[in-house]
């Protein structure tokens, strides 16, 4: 039971399985009866006020320890009342209350730089306890978020690794990169479609350009469009978002220009259907059956409609290559498509297809990032086994 509370505090649900018939459920017995008292409740103790850290200013946190009559003693306290004034001896106004059992109040209506005094009183429904006053304090904005140091370190290290290996690749160092089946199949998928005289269909996912998977999909589309231009195979790109349609038209036009065939670029092949998830799925399904593409690419962010598209695509007999970083949809692509790029492989596609040394270099940087994460996990687990959880605490981002 203790473990469940501990983990719950960290906000992660991680519990060993309880066999149903032996877990014991704690019931809280009813409220104990409280007689009406004439004496005022005991005051809260050590009232502290301090500037709310890591904010844009305008916030002060008032905290106190519970009154002797809260949950113990005469148990008469029902709430705490918080008063504020700019001078220590008069002008106090009630600015908020906190129920019994809560010992913290955030005053988010303060003017930066003005000194405030805070007073907290326990209240039992009739009488107030003595007033206990805090030190004077002023709120101010911070220039650096101290709770996010671990994130800053992570960003700096990984960015350095990626850029370091990009620079090394610039000097033309040979780099081994393991084969990825899905990406090697791109060439023969386009080739096969051309032999059969069938078009290629490229589906860029259903999210907009505010998701990195869709941006990566536009980059991959550029590579696929170049190959389609060389093979003179029609390329159909049904889009679920207007901006994605514009970006796709831009990318494909550039690709046809690079391949030296600007005239065979046909903007009507890159069309907008609807923003609706299932309206888009219905439209693309119909398009697939009518156009019978030889090869279908699913690159980008997909949700539940992934299997609707992939199963229909399979029934048309096309080669299907999928790539997404949505863990929930990978099982459906793995079962319904011929090749699937799993998560990180989607982002490595542009480096693979272009064979540009700079891009391949960044993959090596990513590998070093993985090595660091593995080392952190091993060290962290060993520490945790011996009861030290500082590493986990340090990684907690504020």
């Amino acid at each position, binding site marked *: 039971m*203790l*473990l469940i509370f501990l983990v719950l505090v*960290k906000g992660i649900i*991680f519990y*060993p*399985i309880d066999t149903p018939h032996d877990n014991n459920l704690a019931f809280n017995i009813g409220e104990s009866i409280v007689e009406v008292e004439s004496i005022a409740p005991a005051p809260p103790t050590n009232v502290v006020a301090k500037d709310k850290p890591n904010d844009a200013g305008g916030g002060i946190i008032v905290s106190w320890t519970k009154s002797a009559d809260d949950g113990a003693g005469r148990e008469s306290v029902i709430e705490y009342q918080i008063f504020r004034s700019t001078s220590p001896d008069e002008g106090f106004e009630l600015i908020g209350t906190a129920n019994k059992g809560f010992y913290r109040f955030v005053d988010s209506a303060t003017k930066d730089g003005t000194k405030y005094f805070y007073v907290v009183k326990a209240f039992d429904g009739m009488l107030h306890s003595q007033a206990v006053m805090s030190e004077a304090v002023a709120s101010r904005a911070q220039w650096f978020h101290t709770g996010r140091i*671990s*994130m800053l370190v992570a*960003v700096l290290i990984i960015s350095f690794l990626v850029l370091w290996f990009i620079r090394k690749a610039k000097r033309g160092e040979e*780099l*081994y990169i*393991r084969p990825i089946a899905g990406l090697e199949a791109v060439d023969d998928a386009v080739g096969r479609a051309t032999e059969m005289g069938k078009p290629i269909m490229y589906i860029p996912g259903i999210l907009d*350009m*505010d*998701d*990195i998977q869709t*941006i990566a999909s536009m980059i991959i589309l550029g590579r696929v469009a170049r190959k389609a231009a060389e093979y003179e195979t029609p390329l159909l790109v049904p889009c679920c978002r207007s901006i994605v349609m*514009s*970006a796709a038209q*831009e990318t494909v036009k550039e690709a046809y220009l690079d391949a030296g065939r600007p005239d065979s670029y046909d903007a009507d092949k890159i069309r907008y*259907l*609807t*923003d*609706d998830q*299932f*309206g*888009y799925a*219905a*439209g693309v399904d*119909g398009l697939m*059956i009518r156009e019978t593409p030889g090869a279908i690419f699913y690159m980008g962010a997909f949700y539940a409609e992934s299997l609707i598209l992939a199963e229909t695509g399979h029934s048309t007999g096309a080669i299907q290559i999928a790539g997404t970083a949505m*863990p*929930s949809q*990978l*099982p*459906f692509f793995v*079962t319904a498509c011929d090749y699937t790029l799993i*998560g*990180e*492989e989607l982002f*490595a596609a542009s480096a693979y297809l272009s064979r540009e040394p700079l891009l391949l270099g960044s*993959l*090596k940087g*990513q*590998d070093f990032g*993985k090595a660091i*994460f*593995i080392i*952190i*996990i*091993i060290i*962290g*687990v*060993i520490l*945790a*086994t011996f009861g030290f959880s500082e*590493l*986990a605490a340090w*990684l907690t*981002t504020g």
Partner: protein
Amino acid sequence: MIETIGIWIAALLTLCILSFLYKENPFYKFAEHLFVGVSAAYWAVYYYYNILRPNLIQPLFIEGQILFVIPLVLGIMMVMRLFPKVGWVSRWPLAFIVGTYAGYNLITYLQSNAVDQVRATLISFIHLESWGDFIGNPGVITFLNAIAVPVVVVGVITGIIYFFFSREHKGVFGGFAKTGVWFLMIAFGASFGYTVMARISLLIGRMYFLLHNWLRVI
């Protein structure tokens, strides 16, 4: 009366979509085109009421916040694509969006996908309480609970190793990568099996609508 007409429309359209399973036929094509048209209009109207009015017309034209001229200009630049001569200017808003969300995604994915997941894995390898349960009443489930943490830690590490690009998956390293693939396959199989029930529920919901609301058979 209007209610029953609504139910009839809904039921017939449901059957049109269902007919797609047999083969692509005129009924499906009708429903497909109707659906694309209606849903495109739905989102256009939705964007107008929930984005254009509250986020642009209200702050800029009514409250006069000058700062909102920038998105207005970027938006108009986007529409310039309609005129080929000036179309290139649409690359500016596109560049703004791509840059903004490259930066935004870098932070959010690093935090939620990497740092938080790594932190969640830093747990004690031996979990005394569950080992005590296992010794107390040995059985499959209590044993599995006891080895739960080692399984997770090994699974995460070997899973990451599978994704290495710049090293050949051979020898010991290859062995780890192979174990990693096994964990991925268990994960894909499990989450596939887990969602089957939810998908069947959807079909139950639709059939219940046809049999209860439309045909009133149950």
